[in-house]
Every structure is written in structure tokens, then in C-alpha cells.
């Protein structure tokens, strides 16, 4: 069976040491101020009136139905059979149509390469049988990565053993493959995915240019197919009329 890679984040074990971010930046040599992963801190007052902090390590969620792949005009954004969403930098134009499409804000334009950067679950490391850099370096063992289709993998065992949640809402439910354990606590809104405002050009293309073009070309083909059929019928009629008048003579 083909692997299905997933990432688990046990938020009760995260200590916000940022080792994962540092490892990711070192692994991918990301420019200053940019990172392919992050840890979100959410402060709130609990039921007892005491302040609390929840920590959410985040990155590309490698969704089953990734909108970033859908909007890519050059096919640079693509999804591997094992579920990893990648960017082919040789053909990425850096047009950023995919950036607002991602409700997890996991994509950004790399100012050095001029192409889109994002978490790849450290695909080159995975292909060598290694763990992603962030998982390797997580001091609290809060991050666990593996093949969910392998019943013997750590992620499969953990998925069965604990109650995991995904970052999905009624508005955004695109099959993320990143799970979070919060020991029963609700996930704060600040961490939840949100639909971003798309580029006007992209919206115009999706909602006007493409449907009108498809309808127009389809309509024209239908009209001229109809004209062709009518011409055939008329010719047939002509021939039979001529034959009829010939027989009468």
C-alpha cells in the first residue's frame, strides 16, 4: 500500500523552544524573517479565571484536497501519491496565486529564489528514510511523523491511542493531514484556518473567464454542429425531391 504521511503535534508536550523552527530554517536555508514552520502561542483566561497559554506547532497541512494545487497556473504545485504537497521550483513562476489560496498561510514568496516556499515534510529526508528536521530536533517529542497506512508505525499507534483533532472549520475542511492533541481542550479560533481574500485576477479567471470561455466555445460548437446536421438533412431532402420528380417524369 502507498504510504500516507501525516504529522502529529502533541500540544501538551510542546515547550515553545522553537527548536523545530531553527532546524527547519537550517535545513532549508530560509531567508531571515521567513520560516516554513512556526509555533503559535495562544493566550487566554481559563474557566477558573487563570491565564493559560496553548502552543500550536504549525506548517503546511498537506491537505487531501489542496487549494494551492488547484489554483497553480503552471502545475508547479503538485501532490505526490503519498500525500506530500510539493512545489516544482523549475516551473514555479512566483505568481503567488497559491498564497491566499492556502487557509493555513503556509506559503510565501521566497525573495532569494523568487519561487514559492513551503513545508514539504522534508521530502528529501523522507525519501532517504530519515525523519523531517523539525521532528528530529523536537526536544519535547511533541512532533511525531510517519505513515498512517502502516499499522505498525508510531503515528498509527498514537492515532488509535489518543483523541486527535484537525484544524478544520465548517468553512474550511480540505482534509489536512496534520493532527493535534490538546488533552481535550478546544482549539482556539486564532489557530483555525481562514479563507483569505483571493487576488482579483484569480477570482475573475475562475468565475468569469473560464466559465464564459467554456460555455462560449461549447455553444459555438453546438451551433455549428447543428448547422452541419441541418445541411446534411437539407441535402438528403433535396436528393429525394429530385429523385421523386425524376421518377414522375
Amino acid at each position, binding site marked *: 500500500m502507498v504510504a500516507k504521511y501525516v504529522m502529529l503535534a502533541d500540544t501538551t508536550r510542546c515547550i515553545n523552544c522553537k527548536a523545530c523552527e531553527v532546524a527547519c530554517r537550517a535545513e532549508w536555508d530560509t531567508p531571515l524573517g521567513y520560516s516554513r514552520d512556526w509555533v503559535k502561542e495562544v493566550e487566554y483566561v481559563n474557566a477558573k479565571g487563570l491565564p493559560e497559554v496553548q502552543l500550536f506547532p504549525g506548517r503546511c497541512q498537506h491537505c487531501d484536497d489542496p*487549494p494551492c*494545487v*488547484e*489554483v*497553480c*497556473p*503552471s*502545475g*508547479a*504545485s*503538485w501532490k505526490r501519491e503519498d500525500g506530500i504537497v510539493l512545489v*516544482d521550483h*523549475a*516551473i*514555479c*513562476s*512566483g*505568481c*503567488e*496565486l497559491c498564497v491566499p489560496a492556502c487557509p493555513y498561510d503556509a506559503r510565501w*514568496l*521566497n*525573495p*532569494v529564489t*523568487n519561487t514559492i516556499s513551503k513545508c514539504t515534510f522534508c521530502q528529501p529526508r523522507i525519501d532517504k528514510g530519515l525523519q523531517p528536521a523539525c521532528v528530529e530536533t523536537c526536544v519535547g517529542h511533541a512532533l511525531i511523523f510517519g505513515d498512517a497506512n502502516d499499522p505498525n508505525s508510531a503515528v498509527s499507534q498514537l492515532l488509535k491511542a489518543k483523541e486527535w483533532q484537525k484544524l478544520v472549520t465548517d468553512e474550511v475542511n480540505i482534509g489536512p493531514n496534520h493532527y493535534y492533541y490538546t488533552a481535550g481542550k478546544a482549539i482556539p479560533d486564532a489557530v483555525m484556518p481562514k479563507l483569505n481574500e483571493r*487576488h482579483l*485576477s*484569480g477570482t*475573475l*479567471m*475562475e468565475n468569469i*473567464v*473560464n466559465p*464564459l*470561455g*467554456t460555455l*462560449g*466555445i461549447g455553444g*459555438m*460548437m453546438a*451551433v*455549428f454542429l*447543428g*448547422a*452541419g446536421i*441541418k*445541411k446534411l438533412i437539407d441535402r438528403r431532402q433535396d436528393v429525394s425531391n429530385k429523385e421523386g420528380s425524376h421518377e414522375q417524369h
Partner: protein
Amino acid sequence: MSSTKPTIKVRTKDVIAIHWFNAFFWLTLVLTGFGIISGDFVRLAPAFWPTFLQNLLGGNANLVLLHGIGGMVWAGVIGVYALLNFKRVVLPFLKNVLVLTPKAAIADVSSMVITLAHLFGLLKHQSVPPQGRYNGAQRLLGTMIIACSLAIAVTGMYLFLSPMLLDFAASAGVLGGVFRWALVIHLAAVLLVLLGLVAHIYFAVVEEPESLETMKSGEAEVAFIKHHNPLWYAELEREGKV
């Protein structure tokens, strides 16, 4: 021509060659262009097509390269041809084809509607106004193709070359924004031309194969011109060509 009816030369060999060159490149560029886009958001061809073409050519990078280079060859050859033959071919063609005034556009739309209606046996009593070398639909299509081809060539160059040559990240989103609008214009222009090509191909193949013949041999039947393009026939008569 197999017919023994009197004919006259209406097209030179180079015009015929550039027409078929244009047709071949249009077909290739449309097929490869539709193969580049895999995402549903901007994809126009059925999903199997990008997969098939990308597998055939060893990946999307090769397909993008082929489409980009093909586009530049298309624009380059037609551009150079137009420059070299501007007075002899391009200018007379533009004079015949360009629809620039609202009055001309209304007249051409009306003649096109009547022609189309006749195909379905409608508006039988409304005759098509006498036509010159190009009829209303051809003039409208010609104007649209010229405008769209220029748009396609310019936006296509930007789409292909700008990611390689320009620094999108340093432009605070401006160059990327231009790229996204160029994509919209490129796609819209291609779709507009395709819309017109459906009619163009139908008329050439089914309704008036005589005009297709002129695009093969360069010869047109005099009787055909007299019947379909009376104003052009009168012009040819005045010039002593028929």
C-alpha cells in the same frame, strides 16, 4: 484545382504558407497550453489531457519550455514576416479587415447575424448585404484575431520570461500582479480566438470549401467570387483582372 472553371490568383504562396504556419502553431500552442494547467481552478481541458501530455513529454517543465519556445517562434516568425511584407501584404490586409468604427462594426454584426440565421433557414427574406473581399464575420474575426494575437504574444512573453528575468519578491507584489493579470488576458484572448475559429473552420470546410481551396492553391473560381463577394468582383473588374 481539379475544376475547369475559370479561376484567378488571389493569394501568393507566402501568404498561404504563413496562414498554415499560423494554423499549425495555434494548434500546437493550444494543445500544449491546455496541457500545462493541471489545477481545476484554471484548467479548461479535461483532467486526462494535462496528465497525458506531461507524461508524454517527461514532465510539466518540458511542456512549459516547449510551449514558451513555440510561442516565441510563432510570434517571432509572424512578426518578422509582417515587418518584411508590411506594404505588400499586411497593409492591404489591415485595410480590408480592420473594423474600427461603430458603424462598420454594426454593419458587420448585422451581416454576420443574417449569414448565421440563413444556416438554420431563418431570416430567409433578409438578404446578406453585398460583400467585398471579406464578409462581415471575416472582418470581425480578423480584427479580433489581430488584437488577440498581439495580446497573446505580449502576455505570453511576459509569462514565460518574467519569472526568469525579474525579481518578483523585490517589487512588492507589482510584477507578480502583472503576471497574474497577464495570465487572465492571455487565457481570455485565446478563448476569444478559439470561439471565432470554430466558425472559421466550419465555413471553410463545410459551407464554402472554395475558400479553403484558395488557401491551398491560391486560385479562386471567378464565379464563386461573383456570387459571394460582388463588391470584390466589381473591384477586380475595374482593375481588369476578371
